């Protein structure tokens, strides 16, 4: 079971706002959490928060990305409605009617669309493309809207973190704030004398695995483990082979994704450790999309890398569900992996 302060950290991170390129709030929460905890902590040129712990000979990068998917203000209609673009991969089916927060001053707004009774029958069955939606902040003119917002302002889903049961939590941006919790918890709780552990909270993953590439280049790790969130489509209407992962069945270990075939020995070591310690675990059955591991492994002369994810339902949506048991098991498996490296039980 997770400690209350770990859940509190997830809550804070989930409600912090951090679109790709605007990760400052998330970074501040993490820095505050980790400052003075026997780490060297700094922000690199592109905005990655790096926490180094230990000075051992084996250099390990433990990565989670700080950014989340959302929207960006792109311009105005004369009526004062805001045009927007997507930042990261969003599902247009889930946008209309959502409450959002616009800009750094978090102005409240709603993603608007035509009223349903204005649509003819055939239009009602169609998904409205994002470019036909707009954001309504109550402004009555272009000038009024432009006086409180600026094109480029980030737009966040106004979703509060909630605990739905003992084990299930709801919130926005679990992709990848759950990973941030795993990395932060590992740095706070454990020492690995034979490792130089780089906890990397990376920027701009959702728009092309950007921050992690830069971090892996300048940190030059010997190997890297990326902790991410992955979709859990165990809901009605999805064929069993397409479910990707199941909520509550433990960390989802990737075989491959659209950017990397995972390092086989690392992947097998994760499975071996999970089996040995009786930890629930599963394979991620989706083999597309990308994770930071794909950006990391091609840096310099190559970095063996693997991804392990916390299953989340409704990923890349305004609100996701995650299991605290899965989070706890992911934290544990990440630690077991690092411990096996630290003790020399596992080498590449």
């Amino acid at each position, binding site marked *: 079971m997770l400690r209350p302060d770990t859940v509190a950290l997830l809550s804070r991170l989930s409600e912090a706002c951090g679109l790709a390129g605007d990760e400052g709030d998330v970074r501040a929460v993490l820095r505050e959490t980790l400052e003075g905890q026997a780490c060297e902590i700094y922000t690199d040129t592109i905005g990655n928060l790096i926490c180094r712990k230990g000075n051992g000979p084996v250099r390990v990068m433990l990565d989670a990305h700080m950014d989340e998917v959302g929207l960006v203000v792109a311009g105005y209609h004369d009526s004062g409605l805001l045009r927007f673009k997507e930042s990261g991969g969003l599902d247009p089916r889930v946008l209309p009617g959502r409450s959002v927060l616009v800009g750094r001053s978090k102005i409240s707004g709603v993603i608007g669309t035509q009223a349903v009774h204005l649509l003819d029958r055939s239009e009602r069955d169609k998904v409205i493309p994002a470019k036909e939606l707009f954001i309504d902040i109550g402004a009555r003119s272009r000038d009024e809207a432009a006086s409180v917002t600026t094109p480029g302002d980030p737009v966040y889903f106004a979703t509060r973190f909630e605990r739905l049961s003992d084990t299930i939590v709801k919130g926005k941006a679990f992709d990848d704030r759950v990973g941030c919790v795993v990395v932060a918890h590992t740095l706070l709780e454990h020492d690995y004398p034979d490792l130089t552990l780089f906890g990397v909270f990376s920027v701009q993953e959702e728009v092309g695995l950007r921050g992690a590439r830069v971090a892996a280049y300048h940190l030059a790790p010997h190997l890297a483990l990326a902790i991410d969130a992955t979709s859990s489509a165990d809901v009605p209407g999805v064929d069993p082979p397409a479910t990707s992962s199941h909520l509550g069945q433990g960390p989802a270990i990737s075989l491959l994704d659209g950017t990397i075939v995972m390092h086989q020995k690392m992947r097998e070591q994760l499975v071996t450790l999970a089996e040995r310690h009786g930890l629930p675990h599963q394979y991620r059955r989706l083999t597309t999309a990308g994770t930071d591991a794909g950006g990391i492994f091609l840096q310099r002369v190559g970095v*063996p890398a693997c991804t392990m994810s916390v299953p989340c339902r409704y990923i890349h949506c305004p609100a996701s569900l995650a299991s605290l048991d899965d989070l706890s098991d992911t934290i544990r498996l990440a630690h077991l992996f690092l411990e096996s490296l630290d003790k020399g039980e596992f080498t590449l």
Partner: protein
Amino acid sequence: MKDTLRKLVTIYGPSGREAAVAEEITALLRPYVDEIHTDALGNVIATLDGKATAPAPFRVMLCAHMDQSGLIVTEVTPEGLLRFSVVGRLRATSLPGQRVLGLSGTPGLVRLDDGVEVRDIASGKMHIEVGASDRDAAMAKARPGDVFLPTASLLDFGDCQSSPALDNRAGCAVLVEVARRLKSTASHPSITHFVFSVQGAVDPRGAHPAAYGLRPDLGLVVDVARAKTGGSKIDLILGQGPAIRIRGDNYIAPPRVRNLLEKAAIEANLRYQFEVTAAEETASDAAAIEIAGAGTLTGVLTLPARGCWTTSATVSLADLEATATLLLTILKAPITL
């Protein structure tokens, strides 16, 4: 060359699981090179120093990806069937009915799910049969993460050779042949690096860190490309010599490199073709080598292959020989770009 090809196509080596191919290539190459090693990602990197007296000899990186496309098991169903994803570029339409083998020789058969129409064929609507009637029996034969490959023997038509693994063991065979002939060439003033890269059947990947480490002056990639068959609008013809790729996905030949390749083909009196395409599947290691480090001028020679990216690619040994000859023609003389 045929013997090398025969050896290479029968080795198990899907993307991300290249160790056995790396081992065989290392054994084949070792007599012809000064140094050979496998890097952190599994790329085989070998070097033959031409012992030029110049203070900074010209350095060439020849590159062929050594992995092949395969079917990775993602789930074992309660009925004992294997769900899979394609790793790499195998066309789903070529899979139904295909016999496959797992790493330890576990036989399998790809079959369409019941009731799937031809137009709906996709890897998610197929399964691998391993002759198991429930999950436990199937798990004794294969587990998630195992990769199955189309049965790998070489079909020998004489000059033409067919095998699922020709993408890109054909390119690997060419590089081994270049090393063999280069070793016994009196003058080869450049330093030649031979790179057999990982995960190149999926995307340009392993070649990037290899090029970063080697920092060559010139990269030359050998890969297969789709040759004309019934009904296709492709210009590349099997048996008409290697193609100099002018344009591919994420790649445009630098004119200096294009000219170098064409000049060598003419000098060696070889038939050659040009390839201009932008199809997504034509991303070669060149796209990675070009942008690695501070950038590398890179050329691509493609071997015309009928049925490329299906389970029955066909190449011509004469094309392979000509490609080796073309590369040797370049390497025998001082290179200026």
